[in-house]
């Protein structure tokens, strides 16, 4: 779990925040509320998750409960991996 969090945080910081100041994003912060990701960014995040973790994300899984924070993305990836195992 910690490894997934680290990968997601690195992607978010590298592509949307551009600093390594860890305090700028809590794992439970809403990407939308914080204004970190817009619709294009979300498409990029989805593509990244799919490639990085070898999971297929269905259209009906593209909802805030699965994708709107580091914690939610991490839980979603874990669920997908468990289901695929």
């Amino acid at each position, binding site marked *: 779990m910690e490894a997934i969090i680290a990968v997601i945080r690195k992607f978010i910081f590298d*592509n949307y925040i551009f600093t390594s100041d860890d305090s700028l994003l809590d794992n439970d912060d809403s990407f939308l509320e914080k204004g970190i990701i*817009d*619709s*294009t*960014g979300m498409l990029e995040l989805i593509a990244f998750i799919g490639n990085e973790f070898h999971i297929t994300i269905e*259209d*009906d899984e*593209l909802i805030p409960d699965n994708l709107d924070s580091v914690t939610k993305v991490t839980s979603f990836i874990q669920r997908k991996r468990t289901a695929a195992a």
Partner: protein
Amino acid sequence: MSISLYFSILTSVFWLLTSAFLLPVLSGHANMGIQNYLLDAAARYPDKKAIIEISKSCSYGELLAGAERIAAWLCEEDAVPGDRIGILIDDPAEYAMAYFGILMAGAAVVALNTQTSARTLRDTINDAEISILLTQAKFIKYIRGIDQSMPCLRLIAVSSTPQHSVPGLPVRCADLTDILHGRQSAGRKQRPPALDDPGALAQLIYTSGTTGKPRGVMLTHANLMANTRSIIEYHRLTGEERHMVVLSFFYSFGNSILLSHIAAGATMIVHQSMVYPKVVLDLMVRERATGLSGVPSTFAVLLSFALLQSYSFPCLRYIAQAGGPMSPRLAQQVKSAFPDAALYIMYGQTEASPRLSYLHPDDFHRKPGSIGKAIPGVTLLVCDSEGAPVKPGETGEIVACGDNIMAGYWKDPEATARVLRKEGLWTGDLARLDDEGYLYIVSRKSEIIKSGAHRIGPLEIEDIILEHAAVKAAAVFGIADDILGEAIAACIIIKSGTACTAREILLHCREHLPVFKVPKHVFFVESFPATANGKARKDELKKIILGLPETGSAAL
């Protein structure tokens, strides 16, 4: 009589009957001022839902009560007619209450883009000379980050605050939540008498220009009422409408949706984000949406959502697109995805309150790529540089006339004189007319980048990039993007003896610019192809960099 003719007559009779209820709107109101749209709608439909969101809603009666409380509070705080009051709010109902409350107090609205930066906010507050700002706690971070003085700003009202005082602000602070609940109005002061000057300033909307910082477009009550009348007429809006609103109200397009639907006493289903298309589509189904408006990227995102074809929208009457050119291919895909909805292709600009033309849905297949003809009350000419109309098929600049054309740019008579000339508003858009009078945009005269729902001036971004110590020169322009329409690209020449990464440039931009103005692509080059006077030739540069490997990229 054919079935289609019969249906056509039936809808015309229905429209005539329903429009009788909209007579005050269509004819202009005796008591002038766009705040009357809300007063009229609340009087007719106090319990009807004005705004529906995923988990809450607001009736016309509630909307009016909130607006009146804000108006009363503003008057107690000595706001006077003509004052500019800022709104930095992304809650749809609070935004609408603030908007109409400000107008009821006789002041003018300055709706601020909530995707902002401390620097952008400071510049706009100072330029518009905003005296009072209505905002939400989550945006306080921008105000706290402002490092220079804002001499005109004297009061900030903040909603959703956990406590009554917000430390660290440069000016006095009030609790907007208390105001909206009537806990702060002692009613000591009478509101000013109803506005009777339709030429009074109603709103400043900031829009990007090619020559530097965004400019405030001055829209009067008469401007906005003229455009609202046209919109209601050509969309045949009635109180039965249930429109899906995905665009923020602070955009001129979103503003026109807000005004026309309040004026019609209609219902707006609001979710101002396309990040999760499923959320929008589920809401449209749940609330039986009759209309949907968007910019090209709205539809590009929807079409990228494979599940779209599994939805059906039996109530959806029409779809409207504006906010930049949509390719005929994308338009055809939208039409195929929503076969039973009439598709309106529209054109406008903030300086026109904002709408100027539309392609009638019946002409969609016959005139692909056209932006149609002028909306009611507007005249559009295609002129040569001397102001003479060009012949059909020839390219000229679109010049617009009508009561919807702005009063001018705020505190910028020179820029105003450049675009408002005796022929009308020179739009900067190059177009041609066909033999039947249909308009086709050929290109933009200006370098404005239209990315998503945003209109972005390259110079503002270049200026910021040039502030980086390692940068010698920068050229910013738009390059084609499947989703955004255009994405911002920055070409940079580094000073000799220095080093700099794309990430450093992006971080610098992110610190000083709203996120949507941060370049998506960064290219480092040794030199620019230049004109005789040394200006970068961006068309040539664009061709060169499209063949280069990118040195850095970021999502918007």
